[in-house]
């Protein structure tokens, strides 16, 4: 089942209660690319990722991962199929050690087989985690916890890695380091879908970007195109 689309989203609708938050959005994430999803607070970016992850039911539309439909899969199968999420607000297992958090990330059978090897990759990427491997996750600083969240998602051996506001609450220096790490993760041969408040920084790095407004994708283009877009400059870059 080959496909030139790592992730393919078609007419996806989702929401809570009676209201739809997403009204039929469509876009693609090509293999080995970084794609940014931009949107104001409450636009529905997190809702989108929770829906793709299977935590929230899809109301209509379709999501395919390398041609394989994720719609009917339970959430844990979606991880096994190759979609892993580093969620907004980190959502670590607070009383587990850093290492245990990572090990749990490799719960799915494919990932478990190569668990030790992936763990080494994650420790190479974030050496501080190796140092703190035996500390409980909730004793780490915000930036380190974010590394655990990203590392845990990587442990699942995903084909598509989704990052929901990885720089939230980090000091500027930590944000820079995190972005460097994301550039390096890209070399691990996976596609990255990233949501960020640091719109300028993320578009500098991204191959493509999509803007989510009122539950629809309103603007799309390469990172550079979006950086030059007048509406985007006003609404999101504060220029």
């Amino acid at each position, binding site marked *: 089942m080959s496909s030139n689309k790592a992730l393919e989203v078609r007419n996806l609708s989702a929401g809570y209660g009676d209201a739809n938050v997403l009204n039929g959005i469509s876009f693609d994430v090509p293999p080995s690319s970084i794609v940014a999803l931009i949107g104001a607070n409450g636009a529905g970016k997190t809702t989108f990722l929770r829906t793709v*992850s299977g935590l929230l039911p899809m109301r209509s539309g379709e999501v395919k991962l390398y041609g394989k439909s994720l719609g009917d899969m339970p959430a*844990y199968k979606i991880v096994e199929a190759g979609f892993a999420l580093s*969620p907004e607000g980190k*959502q670590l*297992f607070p009383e*587990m050690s850093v290492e245990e958090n990572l090990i749990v990330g490799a719960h799915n059978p494919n990932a478990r087989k190569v668990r030790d090897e992936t763990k080494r990759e994650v420790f190479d990427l974030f050496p501080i985690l190796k140092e703190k491997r035996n500390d409980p996750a909730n004793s780490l600083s915000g930036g380190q916890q974010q590394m655990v969240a990203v590392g845990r998602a990587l442990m699942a051996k995903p084909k598509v890695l989704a990052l929901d506001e990885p720089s939230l609450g980090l000091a500027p220096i930590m944000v820079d380091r995190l972005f460097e790490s994301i550039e390096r993760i890209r070399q691990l041969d996976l596609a990255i879908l990233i949501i960020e408040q640091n719109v300028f920084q993320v578009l500098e790095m991204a191959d493509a970007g999509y803007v989510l407004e009122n539950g629809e994708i309103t603007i799309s283009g390469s990172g550079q195109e979006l950086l030059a877009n007048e509406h985007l400059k006003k609404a999101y870059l504060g220029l």
Partner: protein
Amino acid sequence: MDLLLAAHIVKNGLLIGGIYGGVALGLSLIFGVMRIINFAHGSLLMVAMYLAWFLWKTLGLHPYVAAFITVPALFGLGYLIQSQIISHLFTREKALVVEPLSALLLTAGIFLVLDNLVLMIFGPDVRAVSVDIAYANFFIGEIPVNIPRFIAFVASIVVASGLSYWLKHSNMGRAIRATAQNRDAATMSGINVPFIYNVTFGLGVAILGLFGALLVPFFSITPTLGLSFGIKSFIVVVLGGIGSIWGCVVGGIVLGLFEAVASQFVTATSAAIFSFGLFIVILLVRPKGLMGKA
């Protein structure tokens, strides 16, 4: 009070307290992982005791042999109760939220069904298993220790140790702890949370399968014995600190010792009232239980 009597009281309290702790382990595990208070906990112990008695009565199986049947049987029963009945509370909107009150009502319903079903099948008569070991003692100095009680006490410690170790070091145990700490994150890590719930509930109930078999040599059986065990287990779990395995054993021993002392001064039934008093006092002093993190 003379020393020998004091030693007797401590021994009795320790033995029964350890057993309370062991019986409460499953309640603690289920609450710790699923945030469900299983009101049917005591009734499931009662069912296990009837099963052990029935196997002894019909097949002549010694209760310690019957444990090899009651443990898997109760695991299956727990797994079924969770996967067929309680799971419906979790699957609304696929978002895995459960309201504590609806779970309590549902398990209270299971308690009523089990108690009445057993009453219907076996009648209200008191049943007892009579095996020789019931009267066997060994001595620590001058103090006789009843062997089947001692075995049940040791089983509590062994089960608590085994469970802690397994939760800490196995993949399934780690997945159970992850689910307990953050169920959405567990799902996002590829853990099949509904399955983890089924296994956890099954395990919690399987422990009752063991204690059902271990209790029958020295504990007579009626269809209504579940409730008092259920309430005591609840007290033990809250005393020890919710979700803490060793807290459960400690909570059981505290309750057992307290009851043993109180029963020197008042009748056993009023001693039960005093244990509620103790319960309230401890919670006032340590709201998170004896071993709970403040």
